[in-house]
């Protein structure tokens, strides 16, 4: 029974399954359009944002970790002082998400009924800095200090041995907040995963106030009024960042291989890793001719796909799915928005290309260290 459960979890934890399921389920929980919202309502998915739903998820997570403690392999991972913040992160991400979503749904109901959202305050209404604000801040400070004290007494600092060039730790993990980036490195060339993506993430976050011209939903929680902004942000945050951190922490073992949470981290585990480039697929697998000498000819298909993705898709989408948005934003803002969105989506796309076709690079020009 227990073994079966562990096997099931180990299987489900595989990123192909977990991320696919996660992305699918995501759209139903955070419906971006009417169709998804219909199913959302039909499946009563908003149950999650009720108090019962909250307890349900929290208990589920606690039980999972308690079971995990009984497993020698998983308990090693979760008891590691390095990983304690990640377990906290899992809980806190859910708790804060729950607070905002439950509040948003409440407000949606109020707004539907023609009332004001809960956060609406009478301009006459006021809260004093002293004692109301300062006092609770002070109490919060003491409680935080207490938590830190308990933490520092309970767990020693996770120090490692002196750095040794002849003996690097295996797995070599980045600090937890960079594990998402490290995960990207599996699929992208370092210049993309290490330079372009992080820059674009910063750039994208900075441009939100510029792109998001929706006047509604300011100062109060609401889902309905921000049905596009919330899912896009949460997709990037939950799936492409938090989930990757969780994967990097719990599921990446020696040699950066995948291990289920209840699997032993065997140093010698081998998985087949034979990836090939798009040019090889086309010229060798399909056409059965050798690779052309000329680099441009060789990589032409990759270029076509990448250019097509970034140049053809935006006008196409402007005419179809994002017609209204295009009209609202105008060409420039829409162009920027769609560029950022496509970049974000290129990460899961590349992951799938890897999993499905063992695709290494779309464009591979190792001669100039240029790979996409």
């Amino acid at each position, binding site marked *: 029974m227990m073994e079966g459960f562990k096997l099931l979890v180990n299987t489900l934890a595989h990123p192909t399954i977990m991320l696919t399921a996660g992305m699918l389920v995501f759209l139903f929980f955070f419906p971006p359009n009417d169709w998804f919202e219909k199913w959302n309502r039909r499946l009563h998915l908003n149950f999650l944002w009720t108090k019962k739903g909250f307890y349900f998820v929290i208990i589920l997570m606690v039980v999972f970790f308690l079971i995990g403690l009984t497993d020698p392999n998983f308990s090693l991972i979760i008891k590691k002082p390095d990983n304690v913040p990640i377990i906290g992160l899992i809980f806190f991400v859910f708790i804060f998400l729950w607070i905002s979503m439950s509040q948003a749904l409440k407000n949606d109901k109020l707004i539907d009924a023609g009332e004001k959202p809960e956060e609406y305050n009478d301009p006459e209404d006021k809260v*004093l800095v002293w004692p109301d604000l300062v*006092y609770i801040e002070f109490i919060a400070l003491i409680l935080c200090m207490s938590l830190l*004290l308990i933490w*520092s007494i309970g767990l020693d600092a996770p120090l490692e041995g*002196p*750095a040794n060039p*002849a003996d690097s730790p295996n797995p070599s993990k980045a600090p937890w907040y960079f594990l998402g980036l490290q995960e990207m490195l599996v699929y992208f060339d370092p210049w993309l995963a290490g330079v372009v993506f992080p820059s674009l993430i910063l750039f994208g976050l900075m441009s939100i106030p510029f792109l998001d011209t929706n006047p509604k939903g300011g100062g109060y929680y609401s889902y309905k009024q921000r049905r596009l902004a919330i899912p896009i942000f949460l997709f990037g945050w939950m799936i492409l960042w938090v989930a990757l951190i969780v994967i990097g922490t719990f599921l990446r073992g020696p040699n950066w291989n995948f291990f289920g949470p209840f699997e032993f981290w065997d140093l010698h585990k081998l998985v087949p890793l034979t990836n090939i480039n798009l040019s090889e697929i086309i010229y060798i697998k399909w056409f059965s001719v050798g690779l052309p000498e000329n680099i441009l000819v060789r990589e032409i298909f990759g270029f076509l796909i990448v250019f097509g993705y970034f140049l053809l898709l935006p006008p196409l989408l402007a005419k179809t799915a994002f017609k209204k948005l295009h009209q609202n934003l105008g060409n420039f803002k829409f162009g920027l928005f769609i560029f950022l969105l496509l970049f974000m989506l290129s990460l899961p796309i590349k992951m799938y290309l890897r999993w499905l076709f063992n695709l290494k690079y779309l464009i591979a020009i190792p001669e100039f260290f240029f790979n996409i």
Partner: protein
Amino acid sequence: MAKQERYYNILKLNKLFAISSIVFLFLLIWMFKDDYSRDWKGYQREFRLLEGELTSNFLELEKSRITALNDYKVAQQEMAAAEKSLENKRVDLQVPQKLLKSLKNEHYKIEQQLAFAKAEYDAAKYEYEEAVGKKHGDVIKTKKRLDHFNIEVKQFTLTLEDVERELNQQKKTIQDFLQEVTGAEKRIGEFTRKINIYSRRLTNIDPGSMTVGNKMADFIRDLPVLDFLNPYYKIDQIILKDITEDLNFTTVPTVDRCITCHLGIAKPEYEDAPQPFKTHPNLDLYITNKSHHPMESFGCTSCHGGRGRGTNFITTAHTPKSEEQELEWVEKYQWHEMHHWETPMFPKQYSESGCFKCHSEEIFISHAEKLNLGTNLIEKAGCFGCHIIERYKDKRLVGPDLNKIPKKISRDWTYRWIRDPKSFRHNTWMPKFFGLENNSDPESQVRTGQEIHAIIHYLYKNGKDFPLYPIPRLGNQERGEELVNSLGCLGCHLIEPEPFEETTSLQTLRRDHGPNLIGLASKTTSQWIYNWLKQPSRYFPRTKMPNLRLTDEEAADITSYLMTMSNGEFLEQSIPKLDEMVIDNIVKSFLLMMFSDFDSREKLKSMKLEDKLDYAGEKLIRLYGCFGCHNIPGFEDEKPIGTELTEEGSKPVEKLDFGLLDIKRSREAWFTQKLKHPRSFDRDKVKGDYEKLRMPDFEFSDVEVEAIVTALQGFVKTSYGIKPVRSQNRDVHMGQWLVREYNCQGCHIIENDGGAIRPTIQDWLIDQYAFTESDAEGMIIPFSPPDLNTQGDRTQPNWLFDFLKNPTSIRPNLRVRMPTFNFTDSDWSYIIKYFLFLDGEVATYESKHSVDMKSFQYLAGKELSELGACDNCHFYGTTFPKQTPDTWAPNLAMTKVRLKPEWVIQWLKNPQDIMKGTKMPAPYVPTKEDLAVPEIRESFGQGILNLEGDQDAMLRGITDFMYTIPGKTDISKEIKDYFDKNGYDFLQQEEEAEWGEWE
């Protein structure tokens, strides 16, 4: 005042604030407690109790000891009497005491005045100098001032002297009064010195012996925060600037805090204390200041490994010695391995590994028995043939030369030998390659059966010719046996047909130096043995077997004896027929490593059977690394096949492939497994025929494995700046290496170790000459090869060099024969330098000993040697001794070229001191007292009488005389002729009484 509006309920917030503050306070206290409760403090508290207990025990013991002493009682009575008499003089004493007090006051006052006056004088001097030199100020005025203070200083100085004189006078008067009392006090103090030490120590540690004030201080000094000043409980550490820890990018000084808990480590009185307080087991060699490794210079972790900066049981990287201990530790200390620490403490049984960090250049490290055994085993087994080990670079291969093998042994014998060497010789060093756990399945058996054919094919095809000279005459096997037993063959060889139980030690390895001489009739021809014995280096240029300078007759006799032993069982082992199909597969496997499948097939088709065997043979020899131990034609410059082991002890555990075995993840566990079951890491692995592990099985015993692991653990990267003297001297190192490699200690005792041949001498005397066991025991030393203790002091280097190059007879009745070694001049120089080093000698060239033949000293020597009848036993050139050969001793005419005079004097003083068990008696040298007796005096000549009992001069005289004895120095031929004529029958034991003369 109107009630203020509040967003929150303030009362509730107050409560919340109160609760969270109390929680925070509690946590703060908890934090302090957690921070201050350290394991080492517990140990220190425990030790304090132990120390108190021990000290008060000692105190009580000492008290009862001295109270029982009569002298102490007398001293106490004296004291009482003295105090009583002082009591009567009390009034008289008061006068000088009062005077002394006022004088002291006076003295103090004047001293002050003088100091002031001096200061003023110095200032005045400065002003005057300024005025004269730089024209600042009034010369006359300042001069006046200077003079004034000058006079003042002089006045005060005089007064002070007066007061001082008077003061001393009074002091003396008082002292006289007190004289008796102070004398008695001093006498008592002599007895109570130790008691005072103990009580003073007790007042520091035992709260019961403290004053109230001290008790409070003792409590306060260890309170949190205040303990930064001078706590009782504190971390003790040794900082070693010369011994650094390598942190890869930088080095830091070693800091060892071990003594924080191991508090009794340097104190001998804690021998029976529980851990961690126990005394170090070897204080003579370690820890103490008079030892070679004082704690202040070497710390602890430089030898033991571990993490010196740690202060609890786990962070110090203690390592359990066994699984039982591990379980015990887990229960007692929640022990777990210290992660990320590459040099955990050596488990107790491997602690000698640490010696190598400094003593790595030494061949023999005294007191490190296990480590020595380990390195010796590595040398014997020839590990460095396949594994590069820096310290064994360019050493000769350990196995026999196979260049001329066709003339020595048959193909069939070789086949059986390669397949299972131990079935021929139960204690051979040749390991087993086949029939092991990863090549024992039926398929592999068939394959390896054919592989051996291919290897043999290669060896015999490429074998070189070796002309064998015929044996000139028929040997006598009985005489041969006697020769083998007496000439010294048994210093290196065993003749043990059956396996026997024996714990391996350096000594047993010495007799295992050459092969066990069994079953030779089944192995080779008598002709080959004869030729080998006559000149081993002709067959095998780099052999370790020396030339015993055997005559044709002797060689023939020994050959006949060796040929009496055969091994029929071995010859009956069946040999599979050559199977071309299997050979094809083998050849193809090797071809496929370099060529494509098609090319391989084509190549195979074009090969004849002969070619295939050639090809496979060469590949297989290369695969199994046979050339690591044997000289094989065509493999002269081949690289070794194994992993380099130079720094194996520093290899991270992660780099060791444990395969699918479930054993402890530690270096020592891996090494042990590898040595015991070399192929076991292949277990359950899917591997091609020629990807499998290849290390052969030496069938090491547990003792051997532990010793080798000790050595391997010692092969580490860390080498400290400190180098022991012997390690610094390359020549000495080389000499020591040659002594080890050529097994000098098989016959001789060097550095108090060796002489492995000795028990066989006893057996020989019993078997051959019917000695009783106890008689034979007494004869072991005179009939064994000499003890080379003090060799460096003893012989002149020039003579020694000549002797070693061309040995001559020294002890005339000795049967054992010093062989001739095939050494170069520099080899011999190394060995001589090594001997000189051992005795602290440096000079290689020495002037001749000059003798004044007119002196009384010389005369006395001559007289004494006549009195002592040296010529009873000693040769004087070609003049034979007066007594029978059983007492014969070295030729004294040789002394002048052979011995160093300083050594001869020492030797004459007491020969037993230098060579225990020697038959040489110390010559009688009369003392002054002897000479005072007229009857005795009469018996001495002028020379002795003139020295007036100066024994040293007389010994010098004997020495001088010896250096003037004329005659031939090398009398080997004369002696040989004598024994050729008369034989050794003088040793024959018939009548017990004959030996009575000896005593």
